[in-house]
């Protein structure tokens, strides 16, 4: 079904909780895809990564962004806004993955055109299942723009 070659996919996880990071990594490990994991612990880092500045000059362009909302320094909501304001970055599917299930946050995120909103389940099994769904869906099922288009000239 997928025309995806066996090249690796890059996922950027923007998450401040180390615990959650590890959990997510573990969960992704269970999926079968060749995924390269990148982590930004706050909004600023995330933006630096995405704009490939400073330390992140060689950073790859992620195929998927998993974004937590409650981040120190630059808040996840702001990151979302910035991503979706950028003509290039907005093409990257940005999935909100957060503990909050507040209606306001949901509305806000979709208004800023988050690609979808997911609440972290409390239970580990459920969490695993969720991550599996995400990777299956966003990295295997959906069509993503060809990376070759975004090569820096």
């Amino acid at each position, binding site marked *: 079904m997928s025309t995806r070659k066996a090249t690796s996919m890059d996922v950027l996880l923007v998450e401040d*909780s180390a*615990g*959650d990071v590890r*959990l997510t990594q*573990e969960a992704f490990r269970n999926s079968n895809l060749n995924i390269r994991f990148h982590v930004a612990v706050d909004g600023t880092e995330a933006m630096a990564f995405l704009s490939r500045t400073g330390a992140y000059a060689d950073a790859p362009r992620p195929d998927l962004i998993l974004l937590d909302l409650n981040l120190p320094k630059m808040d996840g909501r702001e990151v979302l806004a910035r991503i979706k304001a950028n003509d290039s970055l907005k093409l990257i599917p940005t999935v909100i993955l957060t*503990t*909050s299930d507040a209606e306001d946050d949901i509305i806000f995120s979709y208004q800023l055109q988050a690609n979808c909103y997911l609440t*972290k389940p*409390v*239970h*580990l*099994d459920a*969490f695993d299942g969720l991550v599996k769904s995400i990777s299956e869906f966003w990295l295997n099922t959906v069509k993503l723009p060809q990376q070759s288009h975004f090569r820096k000239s």
Partner: protein
Amino acid sequence: MSIKLQSNRTILLAFGSAILVLIAVGLFSYRGVVESRSSAGLVEHTRDVLREFRQLSLAVETMSSSLRGYIISGDETYLEAMRTAEAAMNRERTVVRDMTKDNPEQQRRIAALDVLVVEWEQLSDRIVAMRRDSGLEATIVAFQDARGELINKSFQALRAEMIAAEISLLSVRSLEKEQDVEQTKLILIAGTLLGLLITGGAGWSVQRDSASRARTELALRESEDKFRRLIDGVRDHAIYMIGPLGEIRSWNPGAETITGWTFAEVSGQNYSRFFTADDIENGRPAELLRRAAANGHYEDRGTRVRKNGEQFAAQATLTASHDAEGKLRGFTVISRDLSEGKESEARYRGLMEAAPDAMVVVNQSGEIVLLNVQAEKQFGYHRDALLGQKVTSIIPQGFAERLIADDLRSAEDALAQQIGTGIELTALRKDGTEFPIEIMLSPLASAEGILVTAAIRDISVRNAAEKHLAQMEERYRGLLEAAPDAMVVVNQGGEIVLLNVQAENQFGYRRDELLGQMVTNIIPVGFAERLVADDLRSEEDALAQQIGTGIELIALRKDGSEFPIEIMLSPLDSAEGTLVTAAIRNISVRKAADQHMAQMEERYRGLLEAAPDAMVVVNDAGEIVLLNLQAGKQFGYRRDELLGQKVKNIIPEGFEERLIADDLRSEEDALAQQIGTGIELIARRKDGSEFPIELMLSPLENVEGTLVTAAIRNITARKQAAEQLLKKVDELYRSNEELGQFANIASHDLQEPLRMVASYTQLLSRRYKGKLDSDADEFIAFAVDGASRMQRLIQDLLTYSRVGTKGTEMVETSSEEAFQQAIMQLQGAITESGALVTHEPLPMVMADETQLTQLFQNLVGNAIKYQAPGVPKVHVSATSNGDKKWKFVVKDNGLGIDAQYFERIFGMFQRLHKREEYAGTGIGLAICKKIVERHGGSISVESQLGHGSAFGFDLASVSRDT
């Protein structure tokens, strides 16, 4: 006669002159017309001349153009045309000459024209010849010779002159014609007017003449009448006229009296018949005439004879009268009865004649022996027609009868005549009409026996007046009777002379019992006194009656009881003097009402004083007219300080304004007072301090207009309490908010670390299960379990707290739909357990849909969870209790609950079973309780261990008035 002649002459003169004038006018007009016609004729003539001139000019032009034509073309036809025109011109010339024969100027011009014509002819002949011979070129040269042009020009000039002359003549003649016409018109009008004037004058003069003639005739007739009357008035002398030979031509009453003859009997006869036989034999009558004729008059004493043959001595004077020509016309005879006894009779007769009433003297047989001229007039008879007649023919009844009686007058009659009213009878005129009369009889002794003189007065007018008066009285009486008030008429003596049926009723007397009574019997004090006073009404009384309240007195009934009355007096002039009409009104009811009113006022005043609130009564000018003790205290004033004050001074705003408004209470105010809270305003004390008050207003009608009673309550304490309450509520609200937030945040933030713990312990379990020792497995298992439970607890806590904080407004919700939602959520559990969930139609309620769904979900979920062996059955129903609430019941056939736990199960985290037996944190029912209580209802359970449970809760039904 001469008048007639004169007037005739005048008429003749007048009409003659009128006719002459008319003829003159006619002649003038005729002449004028003729002249104007001639002048019109002249105008016409001038016009004709002009016309002929034009013809002439035309001919000339044709001639010259023809010539030119010939010259140019050489065509003989032009010559022909020219000859023709020439001929025409000559003809015209002659005509014009003829026509202007009377005008020498024109004649001269025509002569000049003739000359020109001759010249022209010569020239034209030459030119024609030249053309014939030499051809065009030469001819042109010749034609251009000035001569031709000169002729032409002269002709033109002449023609113009002639035309001009004729035109001016035309205008002059037209003017003349106009003037003539005008003149004629003027003459016509003037003449006619003159004629009319003369005719009018003549007519007026004739009329005047005839009027004066008529007047003269009238005067003549009048003097004749006067003369006759004079003669007739003479009763003791015979005055009559005889012709030259003694034939009796006139008569008078005196003659009648003396001789006894009527005129009818002696008219035309010779006067000698009054002479004795001897005298007649001796020719005395004629001799007297002769003597009188000779001397102009003659006096004679002799014996004469009356009709009845009686002889009497008489003195006679004859006077001859002549007409205008001196011819003897006749004699006037004046003779006197010299016999004694006749004097007094004559005198009597004289008196009778002179009487203003009709006098008739009747003898014992009832025959009229004497009457005067008035009698003649009254009855319409001639004297001699009545003399000797029975008096019954003029007074059919009542008179003759009285003659027969020995006593001529009865006692009543005597009395009647004494008081001057006489006997009333009906008389009969000659023409058959009757009229009422009053007769006064008196006896008269005479030679012929007792005669009765009757003075007869026509009382028809008096009768009519009396009848009218009677009518008026009737009407007045009628009004009196019909009056709603008691009416009493009192005379100057204080006696009741008239009263109406109401008076009878009021006083309890019969009419005849009161008539003639003194008015003091029914109105002891106050009425009679007022009659005596010259001024019937004093100033106060007059005023009282003016303002319509009358005089208040006490009246006395027949039974002795008294009652208050109000009387209104008015004077009434009558034949018997000034009467006083009194309208008497029973005012006991009114007085009672007044008294009652006064009582009520007293009572009201009492209430006012005793009231616990400050009471203030305000008039519509905003002034305080009444206040009670409390009011004084509240506001810190003395009572007298506030009376008359403007209410504004104690209640600056809100009170006075409401007085001015037509509706004393606006809708809000009315409502406020309905619910007993009144109008809240600020009041001000004497010391200037203000305090909040509540005002309850109510209007009060009284004589002086609308007053407003205000109950004023100091609500300082109440207001403070209210404020406190508000503050408390505010605090509570805030703290609640905080609590809610706190719970929310707490739960939320607790989730995070909890998730870590739970997740990693699970990871541990996953990764290292079986890889460590069994203790480790067990430890990890407990850790995992603990973490999981904690998570669930926190979830539930969050849900619980959210019932309050995340709840939405109560709206019309379909509980049916909420129920279906819950069932959907429970679908898994239902299928798994094979439960049978049924329900009855569920109503619309006021609820939060999400929470209602949750409620159903928890209850039905519980029902399924705590199932007994067999098929779990759950039934949901709702019943209405009136129109305010719906009672829902969720019934199951599950385990049932022990009664001692009915309360506990609704507590937080309360469980009746071990964790291992049934899952759940025990917060489900607590959540249900909170939801139901938030909806304003209550939740309870009925159950028996082993026999299922029925959980009931109530919700508000949808309000009917929305």
